[in-house]
C-alpha cells in the first residue's frame, strides 16, 4: 500500500486561496488538474473548450488559468490571443500545460503570445505548486500596482479638476482616497484640505463680488426708474397727457433698444414660443402696469402708492417660498422688512400718509405691486435665454407701444409730435432712453441676482424719486432719505442675491504656462 507522501500542500502564509480555471478537452485531464489544484488549497473550475473558457473568464474573476494547447475547434493559442487582447482579462496569468517532449515549439509560441509559464503534462505536484505560486504572487503584485496607479490617477485627476478652473470640494472626489492610511492617502488628505481652504476663500470672494454687483444694479435701477416720475411731472407741466406720452416713450424705447441690438448684430429671428413670451410681457409691463398706474394715481396719494409698490418684494418672496424658485428664509424676509421700514420712514416724514385715501382704492392699488411681482417672476423663469437683452427689451417696448395706440386714439389722447424740435420732444426722447435703461438694468438684475433681490429696487426707486425730485424740481430733501438709503443697503445685505452656483473658478495655473 502506498501512503501518499506530504501531498497536502499548505498555501503560503498570508496568501488567500486563489480561483483557478482549468481548460482541457480531455475529461481525465480536467479531473486530474482540478483535483491537483484543489489539493494545493485553491479553488478550481473547469472548462472543456476554448469558448467555454472565455465565457467563464468573463463571468467570474480568476487569478490564473491552466490552459491545454491542443483542443479541437478553438485551441489554446486562440484562447491565449483572446485573453491578451481583452483589457479586462489580459493581466490574468496563463500557464500552458503541455507534453514538453514534442511540443517545445508550442510552448515557445505560447510564451511569445503572453503565457506566463508552462507545465509538463505529467507534472509533479511540487512543480505545480511552485509555478502556480510564482504566477499568483506576480498577479497579486500587479493587482496592487494597478490599484496604486488607479489611486495616483485619481489624485492627478483631482489636481486637474482644480487646475482646469471650476470646482467644488465634492467634484474632487477625494474622500475615499484620503481615508486610506498610507503615504498616498495622507497626500490626498493634505491636498483635499488645501483645496477646501482655497475653495472657501474663493467662494467668499465670489459671493462678495456678486453682492456688490447686485447692490450696484439695484441702486442703478432705482435711480433711473426713480427719474421717471419727475420727468413725467415736467412733461405734464407743459401740456402732455400720460397715455399719449406713454405711446411715444415706449416707441422711442423700442427703437432705441432695437437700434442697439441691430448695431450689435443681435436681432433675433423669433419663434412662436418667443413671440408669445414677448406678447405676455408687453401686456403685463407695457399695458396693464401703465393703465393701472394712471388709474390708481387719480385716487391714491403718490406717497402711499410708492409705499404700496414696494410690497412687490414680499409678493415675489411669497411666490419663491411656495414654488421653490429661489431660497426663501427668515433672513431674506427680514431684509425685505428692513428696506420697507426705511422707505416708510422717509415717506412718513414727507407726506401725510393718513390723508383721506379710500380704503377700497388702497386695495385696488395692490394690483400694481402684484403686476411688478408677476413680471419679475415671469422674467426670472420664462425668458428665452438666447435672445439678446437689448433685442428683448426693444421688442417688448415696441409691442406695448402698438398695443397702446388704439386705446390712445379712442381716448382722444394721441399727441401728434411737432416737426419743430421742442421741449416736449426732448423730454419724450429722454424718458424713452431713461425708461429703456432702467428696464435693461432691471432685466440684467433679475437674471443675475434673482427676482427677490431685484424686487428691492422698488425701495431704491422710491428714495431715488425723492432725491431726483429735489435735484430737478427743487423739492426739499429730508435727512431721513439718507437714513432710508442706509436701511435699504442693510436690507440688500440681508436679502443677498440669489443664484450663483457654489462652484469656484480658479484663474491660475500651477503647472503650465497659460496661453497668452
Amino acid at each position, binding site marked *: 500500500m502506498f501512503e501518499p507522501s506530504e501531498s497536502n500542500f499548505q498555501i503560503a502564509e498570508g496568501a488567500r486561496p486563489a480561483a483557478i480555471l482549468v481548460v482541457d478537452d480531455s475529461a481525465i*485531464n480536467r479531473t486530474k488538474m482540478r483535483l491537483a489544484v484543489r489539493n494545493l488549497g485553491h479553488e478550481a473550475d473547469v472548462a472543456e473548450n476554448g469558448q467555454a473558457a472565455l465565457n467563464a473568464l468573463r463571468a467570474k474573476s480568476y487569478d490564473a488559468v491552466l490552459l491545454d494547447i491542443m483542443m479541437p475547434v478553438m485551441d489554446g493559442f486562440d484562447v491565449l490571443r483572446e485573453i491578451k487582447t481583452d483589457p479586462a482579462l489580459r493581466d490574468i496569468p496563463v500557464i500552458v500545460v503541455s507534453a514538453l517532449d514534442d511540443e517545445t515549439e508550442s510552448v515557445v509560441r505560447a510564451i511569445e503570445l503572453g503565457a506566463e509559464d508552462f507545465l509538463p503534462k505529467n*507534472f509533479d505536484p511540487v512543480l505545480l505548486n511552485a509555478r502556480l505560486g510564482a504566477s499568483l504572487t506576480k498577479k497579486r503584485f500587479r493587482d496592487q500596482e494597478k490599484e496604486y496607479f488607479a489611486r495616483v490617477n485619481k489624485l492627478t485627476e483631482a489636481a486637474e479638476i482644480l487646475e482646469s478652473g471650476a470646482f467644488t470640494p465634492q467634484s474632487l472626489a477625494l474622500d475615499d482616497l484620503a481615508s486610506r492610511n498610507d503615504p498616498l492617502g495622507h497626500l490626498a488628505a493634505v491636498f483635499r484640505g488645501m483645496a477646501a481652504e482655497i475653495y472657501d476663500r474663493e467662494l467668499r470672494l465670489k459671493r462678495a463680488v456678486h453682492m456688490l454687483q447686485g447692490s450696484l444694479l439695484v441702486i442703478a435701477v432705482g435711480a433711473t426708474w426713480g427719474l421717471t416720475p419727475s420727468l413725467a411731472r415736467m412733461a405734464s407741466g407743459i401740456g402732455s397727457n400720460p397715455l399719449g406720452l406713454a405711446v411715444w416713450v415706449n416707441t422711442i424705447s423700442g427703437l432705441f433698444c432695437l437700434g442697439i441690438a441691430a448695431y450689435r448684430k443681435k436681432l433675433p429671428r423669433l419663434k412662436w414660443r418667443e413671440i408669445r413670451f414677448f406678447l405676455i410681457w408687453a401686456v403685463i409691463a407695457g399695458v396693464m402696469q401703465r393703465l393701472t398706474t394712471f388709474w390708481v394715481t387719480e385716487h391714491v396719494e403718490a406717497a402711499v402708492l410708492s409705499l404700496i409698490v414696494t410690497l412687490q418684494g414680499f409678493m415675489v418672496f411669497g411666490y419663491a417660498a411656495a414654488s421653490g424658485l429661489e431660497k426663501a428664509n427668515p433672513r431674506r424676509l427680514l431684509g425685505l422688512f428692513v428696506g420697507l421700514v426705511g422707505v416708510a420712514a422717509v415717506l412718513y416724514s414727507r407726506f401725510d400718509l393718513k390723508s383721506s385715501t379710500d380704503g377700497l382704492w388702497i386695495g385696488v392699488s395692490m394690483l400694481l405691486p402684484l403686476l411688478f411681482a408677476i413680471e419679475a417672476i415671469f422674467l426670472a423663469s420664462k425668458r428665452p435665454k438666447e435672445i439678446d437683452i437689448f433685442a428683448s427689451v426693444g421688442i417688448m417696448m415696441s409691442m406695448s407701444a402698438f398695443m397702446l395706440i388704439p386705446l390712445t386714439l379712442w381716448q382722444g389722447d394721441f399727441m401728434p409730435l411737432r416737426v419743430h424740435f421742442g421741449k416736449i420732444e426732448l423730454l419724450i426722447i429722454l424718458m424713452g432712453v431713461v425708461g429703456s435703461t432702467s428696464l435693461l438694468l432691471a432685466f440684467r438684475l433679475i437674471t443675475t441676482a434673482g427676482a427677490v433681490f431685484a424686487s428691492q429696487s422698488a425701495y431704491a426707486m422710491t428714495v431715488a424719486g425723492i432725491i431726483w425730485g429735489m435735484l430737478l424740481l427743487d423739492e426739499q430733501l429730508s435727512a431721513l432719505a439718507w437714513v432710508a438709503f442706509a436701511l435699504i443697503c442693510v436690507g440688500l445685505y440681508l436679502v443677498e442675491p440669489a443664484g450663483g452656483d457654489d462652484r469656484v473658478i480658479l484663474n491660475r495655473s500651477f503647472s503650465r504656462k497659460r496661453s497668452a
Partner: protein
Amino acid sequence: MTEAVVDTSSLRKLLDVIGGDRDEFQELLDEYVATAPELIESIRVGVANADLDKTRIAAHTLKSNSRDFGATKLASLSEELEHACKAGSLDGTGTILAAIATEVVAVCTRLGGIKAEDV
C-alpha cells in the same frame, strides 16, 4: 524481456498528484477504461476519412492519458500516430493502428483489474 503493460509507479504518482483521495482515483481509473475505446473509435473514423486533425487530437489525448496511467507502450504508439498526423500523412499507419487496438485491450484489462486500494 517483455515490457509491463502498465507501470504501477505511474499510478502512485497520479494518486499523489490528485492529493491521495482513493475514491477520486478510482473514478479516474474507471474514466480511463471507459474513454479509451471511444478514443480508438475516433482514431479509426479519423483514419478512414483521412481526417488528420481528428486523428491527431484523439491520438494526443490517448497518449497523455496513457502516460498518466503508466501505459508506456500504448503512449508511445499513440505518439507515433500523432507524429504521423503532424507530418501530414496517414500512409503506413495501418500497423500502428492495429498495434494500438491490441495494446488498448491489454491496458484496459490490466487497469480494470486494479483497485484503487491496491495502489
